[in-house]
C-alpha cells in the first residue's frame, strides 16, 4: 500500500518534529502564557465592543443612537478598561512566560517575575518628561507591538537567574538561624541587582539614542510582522497545522510560534479600533478560530452534521457524538472517530476545507467587504457568534454560515465514497 508506507514515514518525521517544537522550553512557556491570558483578553474585548456602536450618519434606530451616545460619554472609561487589559497584552505575556519558564526549571517564581516586570517596564515605557513637575510616560508599546520584547525580557531574566543560582553567583549565605524567606531574599540580592542593572543599561543606551528598546526592536521586526499577515503566510500556516492534525497530532506544537503573531495582531487591531483608526491586520486569533476552523481543526462542523444522517452506523454514531463538541470548536471526536486522521479519502478535504475558508475570509477582509476582527472570546465560542462579536459586522455572520454550507459541499463527495466503503463493510459483517 503506497499510502500506508507514505503516511508511516511522514509520521516518523512529524512526530519527532512535533515533539521537539512542543518540548522546546521557550516555545512551550510562550504557548502556555498565551493560553493563560484568556480571561484578560476576553474582559478587554467587552469595552471595545461597547465602544464600537455600529452607527453611521443616517442611523435612526433609537437603541443604536443611545448606545453610541453612551459610548461617547464614557469613552475614557471604556478605553482605559480595554487599554489596561487586552491592549496591555505584552505585560501579561512577560509575566506568563516568566512564570512558566520558572516552573520548567522548578525555580523560585516570585522574584524572577518581579525582575522581569521591572525589566519590561524599563524597556517598554518611554519617559517623555521627568522631574518634580510630574512624570509623563508613553506606555502605548505594552500592546501587541511589545510582545517580542516581553518574551525576550522573560527569557533573559529566567535563563540568567537560573544560571546564576545554579552557579551560586553572588550568593550571600545567611546563618541557619535566619528565617528561610529572608535568607532567600539575600541569596537573590546580587542576581537581582545584576539583572536590573543589565536592563537599566539597555534603557540608558536607547534613551540616549532618543528611542526605546521596544521601538527599536519593533522597527526591525515590523517587516516580518507584515509578512506574517499576508495571504501566502496564512495559507502556509493553515496547511501546516492541518498536516499535523492529519497525523492526529495537536497543533499546540506550532502554537508557541503562532500565539505571538495571532494575538499580537489582534491587540494592535484592538488599539486601532479604540483610537478610531483603520484596522490593519487580518491574521488574528478570532480570524483563525471563528472563520478558518469552523467547528474545530479541519472545519468539521458541516461534516459532523452530514454524518449524523449517514447510512453507515459508524459514521452516524461519530457524527452524533461529535456534533455538539464541534459547535464549540472541539473536533477531536471527528478526527479520531471517523477517522479523518491518516484516512487517504479525507486527506484533501481535511486540509483544504480550512485553507479555502482562510483564503475566502482573508480576501473578503482585505477588500473591506467583511469587517476585520478587533475582539476575541474563548475559542469555544460557537463560530457564528464569535465571528459577529469579534467584528461587529453582520456580514461576518453571513460569511460564516455561507462557509459552513460550502464546507459541507467540499466534504460531501469524499464522505459519500467513504460511506459506501463502510456500508459494504457493515453489511458483510452482519450477514
Amino acid at each position, binding site marked *: 500500500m503506497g499510502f500506508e508506507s507514505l503516511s508511516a514515514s511522514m509520521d516518523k518525521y512529524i512526530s519527532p518534529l512535533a515533539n521537539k517544537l512542543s518540548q522546546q522550553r521557550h516555545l512551550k512557556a510562550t504557548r502556555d502564557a498565551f493560553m493563560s491570558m484568556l480571561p484578560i483578553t476576553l474582559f478587554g474585548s467587552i469595552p471595545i465592543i461597547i465602544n464600537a456602536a455600529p452607527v453611521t450618519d443616517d442611523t435612526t434606530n433609537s437603541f443604536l443612537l443611545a448606545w453610541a451616545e453612551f459610548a461617547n460619554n464614557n469613552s475614557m472609561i471604556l478605553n482605559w478598561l480595554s487599554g489596561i487589559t487586552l491592549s496591555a497584552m505584552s505585560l501579561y505575556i512577560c509575566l506568563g512566560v516568566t512564570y512558566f519558564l520558572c516552573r520548567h526549571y522548578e525555580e523560585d517564581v516570585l522574584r524572577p517575575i518581579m525582575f522581569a516586570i521591572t525589566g519590561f517596564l524599563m524597556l517598554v515605557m518611554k519617559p517623555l518628561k521627568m522631574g518634580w513637575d510630574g512624570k509623563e510616560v508613553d506606555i502605548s508599546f505594552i500592546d501587541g507591538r511589545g510582545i517580542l520584547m516581553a518574551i525576550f525580557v522573560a527569557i533573559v531574566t529566567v535563563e540568567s537567574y537560573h544560571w546564576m543560582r545554579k552557579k551560586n553567583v553572588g550568593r550571600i549565605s545567611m546563618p541557619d538561624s535566619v528565617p528561610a524567606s529572608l535568607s532567600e531574599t539575600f541569596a537573590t540580592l546580587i542576581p537581582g541587582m545584576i539583572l536590573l542593572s543589565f536592563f537599566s543599561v539597555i534603557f540608558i543606551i536607547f534613551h540616549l539614542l532618543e528611542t526605546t528598546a521596544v521601538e527599536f526592536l519593533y522597527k526591525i521586526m515590523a517587516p516580518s510582522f507584515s509578512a506574517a499577515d499576508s495571504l501566502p503566510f496564512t495559507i502556509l500556516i493553515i496547511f501546516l497545522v492541518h498536516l499535523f492534525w492529519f497525523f492526529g497530532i*495537536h497543533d*499546540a506544537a506550532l502554537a508557541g510560534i503562532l500565539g505571538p503573531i495571532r494575538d499580537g495582531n489582534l491587540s494592535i487591531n484592538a488599539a486601532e479600533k479604540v483610537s478610531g483608526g483603520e484596522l490593519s491586520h487580518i491574521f488574528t486569533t478570532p480570524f483563525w478560530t471563528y472563520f478558518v476552523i469552523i467547528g474545530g481543526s479541519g472545519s468539521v462542523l458541516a461534516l459532523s452534521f452530514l454524518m449524523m444522517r449517514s447510512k453507515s452506523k459508524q459514521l452516524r454514531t*461519530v457524527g452524533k457524538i461529535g456534533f455538539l463538541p464541534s459547535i464549540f470548536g*472541539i473536533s*477531536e*471526536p471527528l478526527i*479520531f472517530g*471517523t477517522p479523518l*486522521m491518516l484516512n487517504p479519502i479525507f486527506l484533501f478535504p481535511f486540509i483544504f476545507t480550512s485553507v479555502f475558508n482562510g483564503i475566502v475570509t482573508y480576501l473578503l477582509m482585505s477588500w473591506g467587504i467583511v469587517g476585520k476582527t478587533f475582539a476575541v472570546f474563548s475559542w469555544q465560542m460557537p463560530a457564528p457568534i464569535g465571528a459577529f462579536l469579534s467584528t461587529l459586522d453582520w456580514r461576518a455572520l453571513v460569511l460564516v454560515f455561507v462557509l459552513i454550507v460550502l464546507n459541507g459541499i467540499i466534504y460531501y463527495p469524499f464522505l459519500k465514497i467513504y460511506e459506501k466503503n463502510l456500508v459494504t463493510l457493515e453489511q458483510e459483517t452482519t450477514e
Partner: protein
Amino acid sequence: MKKVILICNAGMSTGMLAKKIEAASNNSLEVKAYSESEYKDYLEGADLVLIGPQIRFLLPQITASVSVPVEAISPMKYGIMDGKGVYEDIIKIIGG
C-alpha cells in the same frame, strides 16, 4: 478508589472522556483530565496516566516524569468517546 489521570493539550476533549470512563466504572475510578502544562501538580495518588492520542508524541517525556504506568489512548476509542472501552483497557493495566 483508584485514580486515573488523563492528559491532553487543554484538557477539553479528554474532560468529556473522563466523565464517560467514570460512569462506565460505576464510580470505582476517579478520572480527572488536565492539560499537559499542569498535570504535574495533580499526580499525587494517581495509579495510571493516560494521554490523548493528539499528544501521543509526548509519551516518552511523560513516562520519564511519572512513576506510574503511562499509556496513550487508542484514537478510535477516543474518537467515539468510548468510556466503556477505555475503562476495560484501564482494568487490564491496573486491575479491578
